[in-house]
């Protein structure tokens, strides 16, 4: 079905079901319990999960397949966001033209950067992409402020000359991003007992686009083109002597991957019409790399898991303060309670970076293949298959 193999189809359907039921899955704790802090099922974070998932899927097409490690991928994310916000400012608050323009602009950007950077390979390529992205970031923050609004980030204002649409709504507000009238920010809440589930229009738009992107990525992985990209990673020399030119293949992969990043950037702007220069900083590029490696580079689902993992820490762990920790352990005697809080304190709230750093190290030390390998190990245990068998099947289908 859909031109996918059985395994791919299963994977796709699992992802689709998870994406569609995310508001339930991510909100497992009743809202009035102490654990509600760990709920991730609110629109903004769910949107971020799928949008950064798109970014990581796209990055993986380049890095996972060809092995070219771009350290400047965030530049495309940023350019995509700027393009989308300019579309909102100048044309219409409809998200479709914004998304299209963000993909086109980032694609063009990727052609230029890719054409130059792909003349080198290995770490030289990484540094070239890094240099381009840092230049973009530094200029966007300073000299290019008329286009990017610098430090603050490009926003929608009340005096935008919107061609199709109004500059301001009747009650003097700024119009809202929408899909043919369906507002991205609107949501419905479903209360079942002590649980509250939020269904956001923006999330579902982003989720459907993520599923399409994921589907396209699977097709690319299984296509002759995807195979060529893996061949490039494996042995470029042989490829040249087999009558194939690696350069256009890598450039195509780079551009596709850049357009994915642009799409993600455009979607970020659709959900929240602001484009900040920090989106292009090297730390943001590094984050994409980390997401992909953390989840499992070269695997289909890994990067999405990695993206979710990092965004979860960023948004959930950073919000846990001492007051919250006290609430969790309030059943303990006061002295012990303070002791436990003191232990947890360095790892949450302002210490969320510490936890994230530790998680990076633990995962890469104990799960060399990333989160996907963790999943594989668990399922292997469950199935109680001989380990050999799986090792073989895993190695024959490296792109799973």
């Amino acid at each position, binding site marked *: 079905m859909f031109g996918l193999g059985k395994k791919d189809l299963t994977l796709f359907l699992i992802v689709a079901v998870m994406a569609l039921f995310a508001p339930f899955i991510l909100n497992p704790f009743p809202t009035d319990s102490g654990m509600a802090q760990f709920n991730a099922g609110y629109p903004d974070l769910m949107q971020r999960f799928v949008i950064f998932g798109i970014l990581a899927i796209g990055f993986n097409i380049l890095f996972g397949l060809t092995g070219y490690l771009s350290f400047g991928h965030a530049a495309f994310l940023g350019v995509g966001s700027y393009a989308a916000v300019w579309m909102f400012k100048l044309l219409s608050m409809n998200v479709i033209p914004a998304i299209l323009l963000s993909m086109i602009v980032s694609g063009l950007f990727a052609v230029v950067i890719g054409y130059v950077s792909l003349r080198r390979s290995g770490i030289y390529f990484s*540094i070239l992409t890094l*240099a381009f992205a840092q*230049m973009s970031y530094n200029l966007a*923050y300073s000299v290019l402020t008329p286009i990017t609004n610098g430090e603050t980030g490009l926003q929608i204002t009340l005096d935008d000359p919107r061609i199709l649409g109004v500059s301001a709504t009747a009650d003097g507000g700024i119009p809202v991003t929408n899909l043919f009238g369906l507002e991205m920010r609107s949501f419905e809440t479903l209360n079942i007992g002590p649980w509250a589930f939020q269904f956001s229009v923006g999330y579902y738009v982003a989720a459907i686009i993520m599923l399409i992107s994921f589907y396209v990525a699977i097709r690319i992985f299984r296509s002759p083109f995807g195979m060529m990209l893996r061949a490039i990673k494996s042995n470029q020399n042989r490829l040249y002597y087999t009558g194939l030119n690696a350069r256009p293949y890598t450039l195509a992969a780079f551009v596709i991957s850049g357009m994915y990043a642009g799409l993600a950037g455009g979607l970020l702007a659709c959900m929240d019409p602001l484009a900040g220069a920090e989106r292009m900083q090297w730390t943001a590029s590094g984050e994409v790399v*980390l997401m992909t490696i953390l989840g499992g580079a070269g695997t289909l689902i890994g990067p999405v898991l990695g993206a979710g993992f990092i965004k979860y820490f960023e948004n959930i762990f950073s919000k846990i303060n001492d007051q919250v920790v006290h609430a969790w352990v309030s059943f303990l005697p006061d002295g012990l309670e303070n002791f436990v809080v003191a232990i947890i304190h360095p790892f949450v709230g302002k*210490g969320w*970076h510490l936890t994230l750093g530790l998680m990076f190290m633990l995962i890469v*030390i104990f799960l060399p293949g990333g989160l996907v390998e963790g999943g594989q190990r668990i399922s292997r245990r469950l199935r109680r298959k001989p380990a050999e068998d799986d090792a073989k099947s895993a190695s024959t289908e490296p792109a799973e």
Partner: protein
Amino acid sequence: MDAIILQILNGLDKGSAYALIALGLTLIFGTLGVVNFAHGALFMIGAFCAVTLNRLLTLSHQVVDETRTDFLGNPLKVDVPYVQDIFGEVTGAAIIDWSVPLAILFSIPIMIGIGVIMERGLIKHFYKRPHADQILVTFGLAIVLQEIIKQIFGANPIPTPAPDVFRGSFDFGTMLGFDPNVIIYPYWRLVYFGFAAIIIGAVFAFLQFTTFGMVVRAGMADRETVGLLGINIDRRFTIMFGLAAAVAGLAGVMYAPINSPNYHMGMDFLVLSFVVVVVGGMGSLPGAVLAGFLLGILESFASMNEIKSILPGIDQIIIYLVAIIILLTRPRGLMGRKGVMED
């Protein structure tokens, strides 16, 4: 003319810092083949060695000064360092004043220790792993290290002054026949430049003239062959890692008076030092040093008003622009060898 001389001086100084960090990074790349994202953190820890020693020397007991009050209106408690109790007021104050140079001695064993523990405990297990895994684990380590420093010392920069005698600046211009105050340069920065030159020289001499260095250089050129010769290259690599950590740490110690250390200074330098290493050419020590000074000087030139007025924002991007140009014209950087980190 005077402006150019001035910026060359500035560039040499910036270049010293770049070159020192890049040197250690290249040692690790070249010998161990490891992409060490935690190298910036080692530089930062070096700077905090200076802070720590300063703190240790100023460990104090409090004496109540009845004549003054604190912000809540209570009698003011004045800190009296133990060092002054032991060595007397004047000598004690002098020791505190010289805490940064003293921290050089203090930091060497600490940095070597940290380097060796890092290599034995963590990096060793990643020699055969893909570069991507190395990046992830060392990046994780860098975050952990800087968060630990943040928990201890806070996020704000901590002033760590140089000894009093190095305050102020030296007037080069008068030596060269310019007017006074045209070409001035802080004493401490001269010290830093000299110090960097000594360290770089020492590392090169060590690699050039000792058997140990010869083995390591051979290992950098062809690791497998050296291994086949029955030489225990692993132990030497551990020592090399310790050495690289010490070089980064010393760069940090001496840098503390130039810019007050803060917990994220390592990350600020990390990207730049990678650019320097790659522009110099992977695995080339002279390349790293050369690139460090080159980029430092170019960065200084780019900050001149005359150049900025022609090319606005050039100082924002100069390093990256130069890196791109060099990598496009010289595929393996200034002095890189073929086949190192190209896949």
